[in-house]
């Protein structure tokens, strides 16, 4: 269902195939999927914060591109 909002998914490399296959299965093959390194589990909170800081500009860019699902 389209809710008129830009959307994207974030998945780690281990779940990349799942994310892309499921997006297609749900009728959204163009859903932007941001892929970040796996695993997240062993990382400390500080490391996770660093990852967010590192990847945030790319995530913002991804929903800003034409391929993002937008109104």
């Amino acid at each position, binding site marked *: *269902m389209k809710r008129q909002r830009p959307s994207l998914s974030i998945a780690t490399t*281990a*779940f990349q*195939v*799942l994310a892309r*296959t*499921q997006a297609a*299965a*749900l*009728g*959204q093959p163009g859903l932007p999927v941001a892929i970040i390194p796996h695993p997240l*589990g062993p990382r400390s909170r500080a490391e996770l914060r660093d990852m967010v800081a590192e990847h945030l500009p790319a995530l913002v860019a991804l929903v800003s591109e034409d391929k993002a699902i937008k109104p």
Partner: protein
Amino acid sequence: MNARQTPAAPPVLIEVDDDIEAINRLYRERRWGDGLPVIPPTRERVERMLSGTQRAPDEVIARIAPGFGAATVHLIAVNAVLAGCEAQHLPVLIAATAAIAEQPLNLQGIQATTNPATALLIINGPIAATLELNSGLNCLGQGNWGNAVLGRALHLIMQNIGRALPGEMDRATQGQPGKFTFCCAENEAASPWPPLHVDKGFRPDQSTVTVVGASGTLNMLCHEKDANDLLRVMADSIAYPTSNDYWCGGAPWVMLGPEHAEIFAQAGMDKEHVRLQLWEQSKMKASRRSIKDYARTRDARAAELGDIGPDTLLPVSPTPADLGILVAGGPGTHSVYIPTFGNTRSVTRLIEP
């Protein structure tokens, strides 16, 4: 329109050489099987299978996560043939397919998780005898046609229609043998208590299928004849610190061997007493979990339990009623603990023609 709403694709007929080995090679190459040889679903075999139901072949029974393929009666029949079923098994598979798609089971989570969770089928009512299903010795093991092919067919439906291919959308870290087949009947004749489908509100003369998001089986050997001591050690076996159920408040099952059930009954305990005692006595100190999983549990169960400290006693499930009990197996001092994915609840459906 998304995939959950699109019409079911019509059946596709492919022509291959009439050679069982060539057909199985094709199934392996296209990943349409489970690794074991399959029975080719020829048009004639599928038509014979469809004689087992009064439903129309194009009726959509459910959409199967995570691919949300449409499980038509026809496609269920195709997978039933692949697994080695015959027409009398089809109504069970139709009910089981509807059951796995019900929201409380959380099939999306079960199919796509790294956990080994999969669907365990439990059959109750007169159909278990009609289909000669095994509820006794080795009921979760090999050797019984009905148990083997029903569980196998449901798993092929989950993989082929739900598109949960291992390594792709099925992300199980190791998986478990139950992902090939996992099915038994309750041993109603040997149980001192009403069967589970009667607990769920069905009549004894009705037949049902119950699906459970099971992570595996843990054998519980105990020669104790004192009912309270037997409860104590079973509860202690439920409480292990790496359990998914304690993380989010699950719905695990205890499959009591008839000898253990009889010890409880002889002590005057009914099923509800056993359920309540197992639930109470299996509460586990939150600090037994790893530091990280303790933190995850604090987040996951805050709404249910409030502020969780290291000494908080975590119940395995939010309420005693979420802890399932059935009686199955043959002679011997064994019972089975069946942990679950955690974020899942069993579903029971009536089996209809």
